[in-house]
């Protein structure tokens, strides 16, 4: 007979509370995303994926082994080549964040706290299914979380250099060889020239669809809301690249149809806002949702859950196994405007580019509390964009909902500012009952 002790009972109750709270928050945000007007056809697979992971709390339901990755520097291609499936584990979960607050120090960033929380409760299948976690050390928090995670599962850290010189690339190539060897040990498959080439094709298809998507998304007036675009990008973390590409293909088709019919999200001229800064991970979608609910439109985003990880293709210049590894290393480091690099003026050019391409009128700079590297860059970006006459506002936020009202005031005022710049508001008819 199994006797259930009081501790176990308590633990079970606690777990249940955690699951309830977690699923409720995720479901709420999914509903808010769903309720937002102007979603294109074909959004369903992405919402379903997020629903499956966070609300139904299931794994990836893949037959292959899953490999967890953090940050954009761990190349997915290698994981596919080793016959495994990558899953991006950077978390935006409020419930896990509260658990993680007891584990990680107060000033750690919420993303890392949420990861620590999930791993500690041991209830999230996507985290528990991972055979290996690859943690690129992009900041101090990531470095320490790698150490914490290694107590519970297999972890491989990747050293990210602080600059992008030739020697650093060479060094990174040798790290990729190490990563391939580690993956082979875990999956039992070989990373060969052929399997790597095939993996390039798998992600290449996704990149192809993504560049189509970005092309359609660009330009004024808009065919899709930024929140929906960010949801699509977030869902990429939990989908096989092939499925994701196929689903995105459908979205692209419906967007093309929209463009053909002259259909738009709305007919009003909404202020076009660029969202940049610390990662915005589902379900922490409060800022894009607030922007779009307040009557703005997220016309572009420059965050690492967005286009950054997938946009640049690895360009093979040397037709050999080593050449492909170099292409991966080159792609992972050189075009990446991550603030972990000491000199990151590249990011300013990237932002200016996005502003030009998407006709941006204002920039919202999102900083997660404790995310120092992004906070450091704010000053410089503010100055540079100030010269262009683009207003910038810094929003500091955490993984909870207590500051939503504060954020709302700021975002509302910011949108109003852009609207007033754009054109004096149309007169409304007065209603009187004094």
């Amino acid at each position, binding site marked *: 007979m199994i006797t259930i002790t009081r501790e176990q009972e308590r633990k079970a109750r606690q777990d249940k509370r955690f699951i309830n709270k977690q699923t409720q928050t995720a479901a709420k945000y999914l509903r808010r995303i769903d309720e937002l007007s102007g979603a294109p056809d074909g959004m369903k697979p992405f919402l379903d994926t997020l629903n499956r992971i966070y609300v139904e709390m299931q794994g990836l339901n893949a037959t292959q082994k899953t490999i967890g990755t953090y940050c954009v520097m761990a190349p997915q291609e290698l994981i596919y080549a080793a016959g495994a499936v990558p899953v991006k584990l950077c978390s935006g979960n409020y419930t896990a964040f509260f658990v993680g607050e007891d584990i990680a120090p107060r000033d750690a960033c919420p993303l890392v706290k949420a990861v620590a929380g999930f791993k500690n409760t041991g209830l999230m299948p996507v985290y528990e299914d991972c055979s290996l976690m690859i943690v690129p050390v992009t900041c101090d928090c990531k470095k320490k979380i790698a150490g914490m995670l290694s107590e519970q599962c297999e972890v491989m850290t990747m050293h990210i250099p602080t600059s992008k010189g030739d020697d650093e690339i060479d060094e990174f190539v040798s790290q990729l060889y190490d990563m391939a060897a580690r993956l082979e040990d875990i999956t039992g498959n070989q990373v060969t020239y052929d399997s790597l080439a095939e993996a390039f094709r798998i992600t290449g298809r996704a990149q192809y669809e993504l560049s189509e998507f970005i092309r359609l998304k660009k330009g004024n007036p808009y065919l899709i809301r930024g929140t929906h675009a960010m949801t699509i990008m977030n869902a990429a973390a939990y989908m096989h690249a092939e499925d994701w590409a196929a689903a995105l293909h459908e979205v692209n088709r419906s967007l093309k149809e929209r463009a053909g019919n002259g259909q738009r999200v709305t007919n009003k001229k909404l202020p076009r806002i660029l969202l940049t800064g610390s990662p915005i991970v589902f379900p922490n979608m409060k800022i894009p949702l607030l922007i779009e609910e307040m009557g703005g439109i997220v016309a572009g985003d420059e965050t690492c859950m967005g286009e950054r990880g997938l946009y640049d293709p690895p360009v093979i210049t040397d037709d050999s196994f080593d050449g492909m590894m170099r292409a991966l290393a080159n792609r992972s480091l050189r075009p990446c405007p991550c603030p972990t690099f000491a000199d990151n003026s590249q990011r300013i050019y990237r932002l200016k580019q996005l502003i030009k391409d998407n006709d941006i009128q204002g920039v919202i700079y999102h900083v997660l509390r404790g995310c120092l590297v992004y906070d450091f860059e704010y*000053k410089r970006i503010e100055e540079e964009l*100030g*010269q262009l006459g683009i*207003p910038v506002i810094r929003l500091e936020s955490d993984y909870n909902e207590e*500051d939503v009202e504060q954020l709302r005031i700021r975002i509302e005022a910011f949108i*109003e*500012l852009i609207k007033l*710049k754009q054109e004096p508001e149309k007169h409304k008819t007065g209603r009187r009952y004094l």
Partner: protein
Amino acid sequence: MKYYIGLDGGSTYLKAALIGGGKVIDTMVRNTGIDNDGTARKLARELCENNGISPADIGYIMATGYSRKVLEVADDDISEITAHAYGVRLTAPRDYRPGMIIDIGGQDSKIIYLDGNYAVKNFSMNDKCAAGTGKFMEVIAGILETTIDNVGPLSLEAKNPCDINSTCVVFAQSEVISLVARKYDRCDILAGMHISMARRIVKMMKKSEKDGDILMTGGGSLNVGLHKAFEEELMRDVYVASYPQFNGAIGAALIASERG
């Protein structure tokens, strides 16, 4: 002549301003209470009665402030940022060249940057913390057994301002208590508090925006001590708006007059 009312539903007080013919005619302030809309209606009615205006002559009512969405009496609402920027047109001194507005409210402080035509260029706001706001002053005044109105004049008597480093209200409170325990002069502590507030707000300023003059609005600018601290900290002249408390309400009324 048509008259216009601006309502500013702040966190502590509800302010109302009546303008007509491009001039501020009357202003009123009341505790917000729990029934925002009711208070607002009462204020608007009293404004009319006091100045002998029939409600039919009110052309348009504009609301602003935190509670602007619940003020049903108003025809429309506008954010504080825009309202403040508008209000300056009426309340700023003659020789003020539009540049920067420092608004020190009850529970937040903000800096608004204007271009030459009084249009908002950009703004920054304090984080979710009450340091550098009217509330901060009120708490410290309470400890030092004085009222918020006396804080300014008292601090001018300081000979040797103390150093107050805490930026958090709660921590500053205990810091001040320890200063009191060490028998520091009340005036010196108050002067120190003003300096620390001014420093905190100056930190918020965007370095790239340097054009034009600086104008203080909001209840905080009634405090001469804080005004002095700002001038010291910025090493520039700082103007104070007339009707500083009502700047938002006046701005809202001004926008109402454009609409009505």
